[in-house]
Structure formats: C-alpha cells, structure tokens
C-alpha cells in the first residue's frame, strides 16, 4: 500500500520543475533577430524591477517592451532609433549606460577627479615626509650605536 503511494508522491515532487519549464519562451521565428533584440534589451533597464535589464525581466511591461523592440527591428529601425524611442518615453533612466552630457559630467568624470585628487594628496604627503626625514640625520653617537647593533657579529 505504502509503495503504491510512493510513485505518485515522487512524481508530485517533480511538479515544480515542470512548472518552471514553461518560462523559457519560444524564440521568434528568426534567431538572428532574436539575438539582436536580446543584445539591445540587455542594455536597457526594466522599469518595474529596476536592477534587472529588459532582457532578464519577466515583468509584463518588460515582455511588452521587448515586443516593441522586436517589431521595430523588423520594421528596419536601427538600435539608435529604438533607444531614442525608449528614452523619449522613460527618460535616460532606462539606459544602463547613461549618456555623457552636462548633467552627467560629475557622474562620468567624478571618479577620475577623485583619483587625481588622491594621487596629488599622496604625492604631497610623501614629498613632505621625505623632506622631514632628510632634515634629521643621525648624530655621531646614534650612528655608532647603529653600527654596534647591526655590525659584524
């Protein structure tokens, strides 16, 4: 009796796997186009789950937007035109790679500024330390002591 129940129970355990199986959406009839769609949607942010790309998201809107990209590519639109379509509607926020413009200068060049500033500070510090070390040579007595400490044993 128990054994008879075992098989159905084990099959039940497989259910979650079967449920996941339908997540892989069938590719469009044109694999080349689909690759282009995915490559472009990789660079666009899903507005619903903001840290995911349009390519990786299962959100309804992401599916719709991928469909938009697909249709526009089929209609012969270039990647730039499609990106413009997206930013016209959702702003630069959809781009994972923000454009270089006056409002994003700090974002783009800030890290280099910080790096340059820290290098300058480090150089200044080292220079000062070296100057201080040079100012204070060993006295004759100290030099003798060093020699006895390090000297031929």
């Amino acid at each position, binding site marked *: 009796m128990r054994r008879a129940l075992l098989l159905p129970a084990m099959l039940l355990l497989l259910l979650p796997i079967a449920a996941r199986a339908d997540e892989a959406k069938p590719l469009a009839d044109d694999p080349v186009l689909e690759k282009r769609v995915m490559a472009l949607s990789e660079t666009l942010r899903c*507005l*619903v789950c*903001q840290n995911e790309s349009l390519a990786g998201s299962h959100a*309804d*809107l992401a599916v*719709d*937007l991928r469909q*938009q990209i697909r249709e526009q590519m089929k209609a012969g639109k270039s990647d730039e035109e499609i990106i413009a379509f997206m*930013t*016209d*509607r*959702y*702003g630069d*926020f959809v781009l994972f790679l923000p454009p270089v413009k006056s409002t994003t200068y700090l974002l783009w060049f800030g890290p280099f500024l910080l790096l340059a500033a820290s290098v300058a500070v480090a150089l200044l510090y080292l220079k000062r330390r070296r100057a201080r070390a040079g100012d204070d040579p060993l006295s004759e007595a100290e030099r003798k002591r060093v020699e006895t400490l390090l000297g031929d044993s």
Partner: protein
Amino acid sequence: MTKFILPLILFVVLAVFLAFGLTRDPREIPSPLINKPAPAFVLPQLADPSKSFSSKEMRGKVWLLNGWASWCVACRDEHPVLLELSRMGVVPVYGLDYKDERRAGLAWLEEFGDPYALSISDTDGRVAIDYGIYGVPETFVIDREGVVRYKHTGPITVEALQKKILPLVRELQK
C-alpha cells in the same frame, strides 16, 4: 585636534548626502514628457468599444489622464480620492484602462464607482508605453494645448491632490 577636523567634515558631508538619499523614492522616475505634447491616441471606449475616443477631442480643455486597471491593487487606494475629485467637478478625469479585460474593468467601475468622464481600453498597453507608464496608477495633468504639465506616479493621495494637482489645474484653467 586639528587632525580630526577633516575626517569629521567628510563624515558630515557624506551623512548629509546619504540622509538626503533616504528621502528620495527610487521608484519615482522623472518623466521626460513634462512640458512636451501629450502623445496622441485613438482608443475604443470601455463602455462601448464600437465608439472611439481621440485625445484630440480634449484640445482647449485641462484634463487628467489616469491609468488604472481592475487587477491593480493600488488603484483601490486611490479610488476614493478620484471619486471625491469627480464630485468636485473641477476637472474631467479620463481613465486609461491598462491591459485589462473589458468585462473586468466594467465590473470594477460598477463595484467601486466610476469617477471618470470616460474610460478607454488600452488592451495591449501600447498607449501606456507612449506615455511612459511603468505601473498603474499613474496620472498626467494635460493643459489646453495638449501639453503634459505634471505626472503623478502611484496612487494620488489627498495631500498630492490638494497641494499639487488642484493648484496646478486651477492655474492652467485661468
């Protein structure tokens, strides 16, 4: 003593920036549509799909476009505020029924009340994409020239209505 002043200043500056960051809602994305012409559309009316509604009909009027759906939970929070707004009769609210089944949408309005001058069905969500809607509810204030003047993301609160939307509408209606 002076040794600690610089780190202290740096810490305070950082703390101020982080504290300011906490007050901002990362879900609120600034709309690029503000002060741009509202995307034109023609969609079937929810109540009678054989009739269509064109956004051009709203030329010369200040109006609100509110994206909603029967499956949208946050829309229920917003609904009493919209009903109150429609009772005031200050500004017409048009409902964009986003990716919804017609029957479900109608039943929802039946159950909770209909604050809309008219609802239109955006079944495939394309008009919503044109408006940069990324979740319902979202509301746009559109002026007489058909220019988007304001966007509210998420449910309209009484506070947002009183402090932002109504003053703006009155200003635009002058």
